[in-house]
């Protein structure tokens, strides 16, 4: 009963917060003037132009997912599995690309690779590229994928790292006794974290599908720029919502393919000991490769874009001015981000459980149902939330006029993401563990508190961290619903970006990085301490 009530409560919450506003928008897009009409949908499926736009979106998302994996999987592996010097430093630095607003990263790379850019000069002088070809690259679908993959590789990295930490060391130990590191990697380690890798690639794929800032800046015509055009040039929310439909359809297909691929395979590898200890590959050449790889990623994905911001900020007074502008945004972002991430971790855990652990034929459909809404663009969701929550009645007025509408926006946007991450970790816990607790008569809350949650401490940390960083960076929905005085840091950045001196804008971007990394560092330190004391017990 406890289990049913709890899972039912979180599912109902998901339906109210995410499902209803989106369904409201889609309902509205097919209903008008007293009848149903599919005119906007016909346009999408019957117009040649949209085929090109949809294929652009698919190319952008696929290349981004692949490039992010090329960087993120090895980075996650080296962080989890070798004795990497300055591991904490590398890890914190690798969060930075995810934190810097994608639009800002885009401008940094456009400056570097544009016709008169520093890197363009180097590439055209020493690598025989013409300045035009380098500039054309950055203003193309491939350039957009390149910038987006720099932004999103930390998602793959983080999910891979914590999946590796969840592995039962006995499996790898026994492999290492008889085989080489390569063999263990290929035959044991990588296959066991396959769902985590596929899941992270899918997350990046869907995030790229629904990304607007980079394609807009680099003038790439994709579904999200079409949606923006319908909203902002035609003020036609029905057409804009209809164009979001292919995003959901693509997500449905990708998710179904993933389920087919993983069907019948078991990934239940987590044991009580396994959750708390990770075997390291102490091989010299692997350590060297790890250091070189992580340094190159650090230079390419972190130092280069960050240094353009630092150089552009120029003076200390720019930081002072930026802090004055962002004072309220800093407090709001940290507060809203922490509350949002905590809610999302809870939601993610229970929705993940629902889509992974319940003994029902509906399990796969539940997972699909929850995940589908992640592809819906932030603007569509934001307008849906306004329609649903902006009402004169007391409770709605209270929610719409306070920080809770921002938190609801976060939960609505990212609960499919957090549930997907948690489901992927929950896959690793054998059913027998929970059953053992139930057999001895423990209540479900007790099983939860004493078995499931402690076993998933790594999963919970990864989910909170990713959720926090996404909440802090969220702008598309927040900009449409935040009440006066509740602006967050990205909103402050983008509102002052218009006509503020470039050095203040750059200083503000750096403040966003610092203000996100600080709570992340504190959270990591606390969670590390808690896990250590858990082991000591």
């Amino acid at each position: 009963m406890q289990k049913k009530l709890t899972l039912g409560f979180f599912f109902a919450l998901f339906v109210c917060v995410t499902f209803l506003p989106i369904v409201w928008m889609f309902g509205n897009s097919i209903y008008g003037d007293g009848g149903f009409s599919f005119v906007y949908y016909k346009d999408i499926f019957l117009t040649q132009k949209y085929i090109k736009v949809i294929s652009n979106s698919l190319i952008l998302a696929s290349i981004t997912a692949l490039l992010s994996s090329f960087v993120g999987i090895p980075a996650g592996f080296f962080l989890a599995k070798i004795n990497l010097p300055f591991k904490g430093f590398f890890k914190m630095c690798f969060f930075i690309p995810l934190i810097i607003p994608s639009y800002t990263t885009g401008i940094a790379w456009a400056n570097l690779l544009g016709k008169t850019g520093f890197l363009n000069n180097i590439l055209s002088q020493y690598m025989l590229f013409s300045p035009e070809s380098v500039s054309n690259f950055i203003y193309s679908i491939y350039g957009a994928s390149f910038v987006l993959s720099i932004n999103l590789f930390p998602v793959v990295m983080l999910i891979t790292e914590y999946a590796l930490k969840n592995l039962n060391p006995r499996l790898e130990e026994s492999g290492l006794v008889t085989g080489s590191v390569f063999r263990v990697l290929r035959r044991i380690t990588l296959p066991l974290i396959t769902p985590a890798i596929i899941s992270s690639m899918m997350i990046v794929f869907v995030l790229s599908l629904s990304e607007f800032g980079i394609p807009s800046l680099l003038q790439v015509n994709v579904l999200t720029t079409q949606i923006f055009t319908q909203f902002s040039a035609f003020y036609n929310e029905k057409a804009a919502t209809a164009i979001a439909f292919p995003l959901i359809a693509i997500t449905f297909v990708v998710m179904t393919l993933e389920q087919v691929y993983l069907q019948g395979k078991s990934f239940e590898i987590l044991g009580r000991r396994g959750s708390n200890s990770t075997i390291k590959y102490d091989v010299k050449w692997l350590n060297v490769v790890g250091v070189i790889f992580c340094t190159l990623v650090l230079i390419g994905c972190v130092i280069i874009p960050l240094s353009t911001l630092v150089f552009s900020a120029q003076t200390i007074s720019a930081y002072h001015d930026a802090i004055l502008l962002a004072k309220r945004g800093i407090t709001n972002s940290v507060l809203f981000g922490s509350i949002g991430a905590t809610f999302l971790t809870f939601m993610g855990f229970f929705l993940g459980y629902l889509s992974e652990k319940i003994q029902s034929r509906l399990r796969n459909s539940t997972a699909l149902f929850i995940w589908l809404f992640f592809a819906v663009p932030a603007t569509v969701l934001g307008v849906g939330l306004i329609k649903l929550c902006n009402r004169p009645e007391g409770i709605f007025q209270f929610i719409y006029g306070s920080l809770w509408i921002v938190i609801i926006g976060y939960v609505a946007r990212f609960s499919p993401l957090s549930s997907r991450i948690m489901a992927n970790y929950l896959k690793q816990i054998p059913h027998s563990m929970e059953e053992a607790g139930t057999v001895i008569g423990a209540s479900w809350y007790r099983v939860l508190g004493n078995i499931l949650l402690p076993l998933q401490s790594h999963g919970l940390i990864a989910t909170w961290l990713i959720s926090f960083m996404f909440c802090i960076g969220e702008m598309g929905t927040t900009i449409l619903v935040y009440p006066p005085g509740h602006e967050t840091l990205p909103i402050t950045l983008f509102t002052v970006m218009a006509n503020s001196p470039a050095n203040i804008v750059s200083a503000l971007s750096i403040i966003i990085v610092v203000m996100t990394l600080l709570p992340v560092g504190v959270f990591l330190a606390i969670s590390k301490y808690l896990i250590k004391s858990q082991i000591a017990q």
Partner: protein
Amino acid sequence: MKFIGIALTALFMLAKWCYAGNEVIVYTSEDQIFAEPILQEFEKKTGIKVRAIYDTEETKSTGLVNRLIAEKDNPQADVFWSNDPVRPVLLQIKGLTTPYVSSVAADIPSIYKDADGHWTGFSARARIILYNTNLVNMDERPLSIFDLVKPKWRGQVAIANPLFGTTSIHMAALFIVLGDEKAKKFLNDLKANGVKIVSSNSEVKRLVARGEVKMGITDTDDAHMAVKEGVPAKEVFPDQSTIGTLIIPDMVSLIKNSRNQENGKKLIDYLVSSPVEKSLAWVPCAHMPLRYGIKTPPDVLTLDAVKGMNINYPDVAAKLEKITEFLKQWAGY
């Protein structure tokens, strides 16, 4: 049970209740760094708390309009302060504004005001050509937007996406002044000459400043900011001996059925007043006062020194709706 009680109390304590009483809520697409000091001054003078929401560069002044439209049934904003003259007309057409004729604006020329009081203009920007002085000599600088289709500037001109912001209004005004055929020909020639279509006016400024293009069409505020930042760039008010350039006044509207109508009217009276026009002329956005006789800095022209296009804003709004599909195709969307 105790835990749930504590959690609920904490949740409610964290929430800030809406400010009741003496307040006014304003949505503004004017840049925050220029609008905020003016709103703070209003607070000081009247004691009325101003709660503002600003638009972002990324949403190009249309984010707030979408929000106002979505909130129509239960409006949160009392006043919409727009940094362009077409969105307030659009809101009027959609039935979101309510008339208020401010007596303070009596000396503002009538072409900048709606006769019924749905919108009132003040402080204007203008469309200009911004050119990089390191790459273009003073003698060869273009004096007309029609010069931009000349082969010598092939691939050297940038313009913001004409579907959004002041560029869209500029295009609609050109269609009115030139007629559809000539305007389409101009745009097609511009495209054939390799014009670079970018995401926003500030992106035009960035590309001109970095010398990635030699010139671009943008607004006076971008040009003034570029000069203030030490960028090697100058502005040209185009077509001063022919059709003139587009004048873009800020406009303010009272939102229908909002909660603080009286405070909203007071804010409108303040925004359209001479001191605010003067303030906006002396900050880096360098707006031109619509009233004659307001002292401006030497580098900020007054409206009597600039030839504006002969248009009226409701016609521009109507034209924009008609040509948006063409602009969409032209921009490759």
